[in-house]
């Protein structure tokens, strides 16, 4: 612990730790995804490489890295190479403010929530540039889809987050977790006194984070039966691998945020033995749900997706915002009177 107090060491340890965490997550979430998919589909999944196929991600990584970095003719060479990094780097950067445990955050920033959303908006730029730079019509269509999708879903997501900020009075993620101390009904998900529509908020947030990370049933950007592989059609080897790592890192970020905002972060549901293990348990449960959804539902269409956002989620989240404001006002009125 003493080492963590010294600033340069602290930085190095957290830098290494976060990169390792992001990389391991990307590798093992692919493995988990394949296993979950397999069991949902009455199959076994990877089993040959190592026990339960646990070494499969390693072998996949070696395969991807040993592949030639093919840059097709006619592409914009700079954009083509920068795009995957534009997806991965912001996702890894977002980990900086995630509070894994009480004192286990790389940086305890007061505007942590804002920072994550700022980085999340860069992600879509990577998809757009990748699609545009690929000089492939499927990729261009996919990039256009990804942009309209991200714009549409950031709005209800941010409105929902604003309601949460109104309730929590802070954008410091660690602070938000600390406010949810105690038994599980202290979690914001169950704080119906703060906002009677808390479950709806959570649902909107979760659906939007699915859409933001381009996960099924909102994976319009890489709808394989329509656009082959969408924006990463022309990518091979590590270019593709980095896109994938970015996608999984974004899923982890989305689920971590949902955990922090609604499910009490590293707080234990029974009030004792709080710690990073609870955080990871909650995050991976949510990630499992994300995978479960992907392997159960068919894909929506772009129109259906945009309609859902503009006609359903945005009005509901606006109403939610109004209701939260009214509830806060009402409480302070009664408290003030008492």
């Amino acid at each position, binding site marked *: 612990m003493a080492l963590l107090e010294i600033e340069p060491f602290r930085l190095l340890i957290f830098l290494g730790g976060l990169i390792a965490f992001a990389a391991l997550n990307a590798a093992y979430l692919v493995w988990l995804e394949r296993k979950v998919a397999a069991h949902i589909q009455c199959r076994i999944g990877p089993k040959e490489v190592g026990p339960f196929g646990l070494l499969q991600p390693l072998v996949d990584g070696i395969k991807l890295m040993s592949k030639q970095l093919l840059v097709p003719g006619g592409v914009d060479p700079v954009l083509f190479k920068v795009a995957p990094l534009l997806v991965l780097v912001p996702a890894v950067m977002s980990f900086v403010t995630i509070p894994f445990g009480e004192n286990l955050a790389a940086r305890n920033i007061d505007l942590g929530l804002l920072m994550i959303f700022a980085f999340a908006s860069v992600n879509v730029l990577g998809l757009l540039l990748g699609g545009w730079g690929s000089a492939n*019509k499927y990729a261009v269509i996919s990039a256009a889809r990804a942009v309209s999708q991200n714009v549409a879903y950031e709005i209800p997501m941010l409105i929902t987050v604003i309601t949460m900020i109104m309730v929590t009075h802070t954008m410091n993620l660690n602070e938000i977790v600390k406010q949810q101390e105690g038994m599980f009904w202290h979690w914001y998900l169950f704080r119906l006194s703060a906002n009677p529509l808390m479950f709806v908020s959570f649902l909107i947030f979760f659906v939007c984070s699915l859409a933001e990370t381009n996960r099924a049933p909102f994976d319009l950007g890489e709808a394989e039966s329509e656009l082959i592989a969408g924006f990463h059609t022309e990518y091979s080897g590590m270019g593709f691998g980095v896109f994938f790592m970015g996608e999984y890192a974004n899923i982890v970020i989305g689920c971590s945020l949902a955990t922090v905002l609604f499910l009490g972060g590293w707080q234990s549901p029974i009030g004792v033995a709080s710690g990073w293990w609870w955080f990871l348990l909650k995050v991976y449960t949510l990630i499992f749900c994300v995978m479960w959804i992907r392997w159960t*539902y068919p894909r929506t269409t772009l129109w259906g997706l945009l309609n859902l956002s503009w006609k359903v989620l945005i009005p509901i989240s606006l109403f939610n915002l109004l209701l939260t404001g009214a509830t806060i006002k009402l409480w302070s009125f009664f408290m003030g009177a008492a």
Partner: protein
Amino acid sequence: MNDLACSPNQETFVINLGPQHPATHGVLRVKLTMDGEYIVHAEPVLGYIHRMHEKMGENRTWAQFMPNTGRLDYLGALSYNHGYALVVERAAGIEVPERAEYIRVITVELNRIASHLLWYGAFVLDLGGFTPLLYAFDDREHILDLLESVTGSRLTFCYFRFGGVYNDIDDNFITGTRAFIKRLRSRLPDYHNLVTKNVILINRLKDVGMISAEMCRRYGATGPVLRGSGVCYDVRKNEPYSVYPELNFDIPVYGECDSMARYMVRMDEIEQSLRIIEQGLDKLPEGPVMAEKAPKIIKPPVGDYYAAVEAARGTFGIRVVSDGTNTPYRLKLRSPTFSNLSLYGEACQGMLLADALALMGSLDLVIPEIDR
């Protein structure tokens, strides 16, 4: 390539859907002229796996062409065996024993279910749902095992002979088929709960991909495509052959004309086929499975003959012209998906790319049968 997509003075662009594309399920190529995500014009380009089956028929004896029929529509091969056997039997005047007729109907209907199951999986896969494919393949595997035990093959069947079938079915097949009927009946509700009632699927299929009965008539579309447009036409009922008149079954018809109607027709047909198989097994008579008087060398009298069967994808018609020798003079195959695909260009005009692919999936295309 990017020039077309980006140049400012060009409002439309062309994309090639295929010949290698995940949604075309084979080597079909569709040239799409797009305005953004809307389709302005679609032109199916055929011929990538043309094998000249009709010409091959003119160069080999009547019996030697039988294996070719199993390679047209490899997902419902037995129906094509059946069509060819029917037309030659009609031409040569060969009587088929009753037991053989029942075995034909039972195996053809099993094959129809297998074909519909595969379509179901592939169709939902086109819509982005991966899991139902595996469930459907699991059930289809049982059918293939059953059919393998009597026909010896799993995909490109060559089971029928002029005058009967080549192998009698045994008790194992009968008990296995009964067990399968029970199994599939318990699985179908799962299919409906998981997929048919799914709100995303309903939104994608309802009122999307309209194909009117009038359009079906113009292009000669048959099978579930026609029955999804409200026209009750099924060769098994309208021009009965084999022992279908003795069996009790319904023809599912939906009048909505959309992709959902075609989906529902096929799902209901699975249930009807189960009924047919069940009755066939109950009524299965004893006796030979091959006509005793069936000639070894077929030389149908001079003439022009036609037979049609209801294959899984529609009416499979086959016309043969005999000049009295041991090879056909002319052999013409009328395959259902060729007509069903022909209407695609008109039907998908003005649609969104995603909907057009759902429409293509609902046509149940098998490319080797289009390019024969």
